[in-house]
């Protein structure tokens, strides 16, 4: 009886976060690995243009929640829904593959940077454009071969040119234009993190999921990142959902925050509410 009441209570608390109004909605998704419950009944609703944070102690299940939303894991229970802005129709994306989800407009970064190490900065970003390509393999090879000998026009060449222009512009926007041709693994850590985000932006997303974008950064870099996140939200008209440990960044840039502990959602609210929430403080500092 008590357990049922508790679950309903949680839902009532987060009713504001679970209405069907937003662009990305997780409906009580649960992840079980064998007997271990990594995430339990996670509920979330992002409104267009919001920057929302997901915090919690290590092992709380934050990245697992991300992985469920982006198709890397299939939730044991529950569903994830996506709807375009101003649309009343929701698409159930729970069982889609990661590449299909990215195609819809939901992009993500990784906690441990996963750049294409041996490839250049520009190539990393160009690759993220590939999903929008309409040309096929044969036409692309043929076009390039023909173009090398005679002046030649084709859809592929037009697309390639646009991809290049777009990627270069993006690199300029994020301040990586000077290292465009360097091998991505040779960049300093802070720039690698920025490239990781730039790459996700190149997929033309409407929703961006950032997994610990400020990890390993010093206070100065963290503040720069804070501004950067707000900036790209405005410039690219994004909705942003981010996992973070740097409280400065979270409290500084997020409008709403979810708190996970041991897979359960223990709080939801704006930064000042969260900062004063007893359960949150207990989760991080432990109970006396």
């Amino acid at each position, binding site marked *: 009886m008590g357990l049922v009441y508790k679950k309903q209570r949680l839902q009532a608390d987060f009713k504001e976060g679970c209405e069907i109004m937003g662009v990305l909605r997780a409906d009580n998704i649960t992840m079980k*690995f064998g007997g271990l419950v990594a995430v339990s009944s996670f509920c979330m609703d992002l409104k267009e243009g919001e920057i929302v944070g997901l915090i919690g102690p290590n092992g709380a299940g934050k*990245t697992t929640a991300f*992985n469920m939303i982006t198709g*890397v894991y299939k939730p044991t229970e529950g569903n994830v829904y996506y709807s375009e802005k101003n649309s009343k129709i929701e698409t159930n994306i729970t069982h889609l593959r990661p590449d299909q989800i990215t195609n819809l407009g939901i992009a993500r970064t*990784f906690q441990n940077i996963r750049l294409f190490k041996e490839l250049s900065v520009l190539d990393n970003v160009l690759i993220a454009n590939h999903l929008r390509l309409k040309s096929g393999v044969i036409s692309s090879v043929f076009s390039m071969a023909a173009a090398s000998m005679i002046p030649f026009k084709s859809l592929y060449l037009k697309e390639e040119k646009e991809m290049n222009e777009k990627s270069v512009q993006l690199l300029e926007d994020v301040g990586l234009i000077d290292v465009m041709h360097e091998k991505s693994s040779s960049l300093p850590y802070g720039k690698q993190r920025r490239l990781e985000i730039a790459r996700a932006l190149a997929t033309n997303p409407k929703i961006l999921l950032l997994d610990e974008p400020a990890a390993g950064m010093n206070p100065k870099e963290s503040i720069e990142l804070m501004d950067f996140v707000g900036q790209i939200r405005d410039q690219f008209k994004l909705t942003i959902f981010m996992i973070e440990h740097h409280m400065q960044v979270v409290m500084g840039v997020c409008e709403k925050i979810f708190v996970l502990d041991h897979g359960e959602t223990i709080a939801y609210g704006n930064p000042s509410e969260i900062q004063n929430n007893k359960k949150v403080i207990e989760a991080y500092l432990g109970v006396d």
Partner: protein
Amino acid sequence: MTFQFFMQHLTNGISLGSLYALIAIGYTMVYGILRLINFAHGDIFMIGTYVAFYLITLAALPWWLAFIFAIGITVLFGMSVEKGAYKPLRNSPKISVLISAIGASFLIQNLAIVIFGGRPKAFPIPDMFNQIINIRGVSIVSLTFYIPVMTLAILFVLVYFIQKTKTGMAMRAVSKDYEAARLMGIDVDKIISLTFGVGSLLAAIGGIMWAMRFPQLAPLMGVMPGLKCFIAAVIGGIGNIKGAVLGGFLLGVGEIMIVALLPALTGYRDAFAFILLIVILLIKPTGLMGQKLTEKV
């Protein structure tokens, strides 16, 4: 199809299955620890048979002494292959290690051609294993009994070793989580060497018994059995010793019975293993007794 016919072939199948099982265990143990397909395993098996051969014919040792020395030398050989071809690449991309394994295998095969000569040699079978026994009209060579018995004995010792001894536990720990085992103070290098040693031991024993069953030695004799035994390990669930045994028997019995019941398919005998492999990989890639490995993202 008479009862005798059936029993004759069944006993052959069990015999062959035992041999496959012994060699498959070596593959599965190495894969469990290093996530490496030791392509050279079949060739180590071949080396074991040749060493035994030369010890008996050239050194004129009594067979039991020759066998023991051959096994010992093969174990050392197997461990040196690990030191030379796999250890230096432990932190390299998977593809490099796989290529090294293939390269090592070919190198050993070709060295065998050069050193031993390509012409097949006849393996001298000790009398004890060559007795023909007649049971209710079914004639079976004594070796056919010794093989499964030997295999089961080895299996019991091995399982006891893995489950009940400290070293066995260390081996299990390394195969579950390499880094954690190292952090717990386990000398991972030594455990890996030991695993190769045990694998080579089994390959040597299996090889000698194989040589008595199919007494024709050739430098490339390890290729097909090696491949089939790896398939047996995969079918049973790679990394799982009991699975390797199951896979070995399945393959051995299946191969013999199919040819016995459907003689028209004799030409496809070797393909049986590969077809079974494809089927398993499509239906249950982790093998009959295997567990799913999830990668942390």
